[in-house]
């Protein structure tokens, strides 16, 4: 086929370009991941006692995870469109993680010296990142599928960003069943779980995000 024929074919009755395509694909993926991780957390690990919702403990985690999901979702959206600038969403991701790290640091310093290790490790430090990763997997699959239908020209980076978004969504669900009370715990082990999901996303992304 001649290129001119192809151009005729593509343009004939092409109509308007789809609007808000990136948001329309990414939002349902994030929402599906959120529902999956919340349901799985409550079914497998059981919910935290309802009285805990009167304290700041679950809310800190959910605000952190929610804010990071938004920032990482923004970054994923940019990486799904060719040549889109990345600086601002990257700064947003660093800012969210930075604020949480500062809050964790402050909470650790205000802890009596003897209790700091306990506050940092809690009783579930060794399982928390893996639980976050496991709860994030449905969201990661959905996010990669969504990005695959868009135009990621940097598959590794797009996979990493999609992994951060899915990891944050998974951490949001995990907050519903995690009784750890220290901000330092959240800053370290939640972030590690989210980063692990990002790495899995990057590895998968470099293979799967081909178009």
């Amino acid at each position, binding site marked *: 086929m001649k*290129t001119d024929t192809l151009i005729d074919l593509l343009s004939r009755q092409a109509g308007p370009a789809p609007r808000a395509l990136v948001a329309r694909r990414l939002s349902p993926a994030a929402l599906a991941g959120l529902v999956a991780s919340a349901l799985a957390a409550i079914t497998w690990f059981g919910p935290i006692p309802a009285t805990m919702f009167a304290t700041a403990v679950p809310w800190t985690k959910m605000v952190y995870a929610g804010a990071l999901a938004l920032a990482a979702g923004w970054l994923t959206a940019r990486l799904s469109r060719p040549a889109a600038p990345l600086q601002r969403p990257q700064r947003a991701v660093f800012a969210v993680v930075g604020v949480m790290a500062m809050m964790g640091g402050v909470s650790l310093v205000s802890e009596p010296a003897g209790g700091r290790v306990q506050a940092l490790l809690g009783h579930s430090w060794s399982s928390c990142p893996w639980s976050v990763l496991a709860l994030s997997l449905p969201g990661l699959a959905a996010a990669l599928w969504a990005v695959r239908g868009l135009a990621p020209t940097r598959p590794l980076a797009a996979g990493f960003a999609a992994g951060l978004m899915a990891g944050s969504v998974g951490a949001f669900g995990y907050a519903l069943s995690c009784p750890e009370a220290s901000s330092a715990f959240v800053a370290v082990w939640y972030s590690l779980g989210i980063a692990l999901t990002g790495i899995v996303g990057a590895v998968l992304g470099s293979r799967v995000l081909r178009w």
Partner: protein
Amino acid sequence: MPVDASPGDFESALKPLWLRAQSGDDVAYRQALGLLATRLRGYLKRRLSGLPDEVEDLVQETLLALHLQRGTYDPPLPVSAWVVAIARHKLVDLWRRRGRRDSLHDAIDDVDEQLLVAEPDDGGAHRDLERLFDELPHAQRQAIVLTKLEGLSVAEAAARTGASESAIKVQVHRGLKRLAALVRKDG
């Protein structure tokens, strides 16, 4: 419109056309794709000097990708930056695929009989997209042939096939997407 003018001139000629195309002006879209095809040919020729046969195939593959992904264009961006990012992606993808296939050929085929019966270059692309159309599922091929080749309106095509108008549009889009996937597999 001079196609070898400076990048800024090219962008200022392209952008108004492209924005009209994005909002549904098919004539502007046709013109914009024509300008882009010429630009892409030059861009890819310089980078595929060892593989001149691949140039027009890759121009077509990139145009198909631009069309399928036009929803990812964001108006504040220069159109040419968006196009070049996609063209570069397609170029890297081609090198990656060829690298893999060529090493397979070295190992398996000392003499490739296909090469001897290859058809001469007709000045267009090497790969025949029309042949790939035959591999599309019936409903997708039919929707594309009726609306895109025979020039029926979507309503007429819907009446002819008994499908709804939105179903026709979906089949056209899916068919072109499938075609892009076939093109990649085809090498």
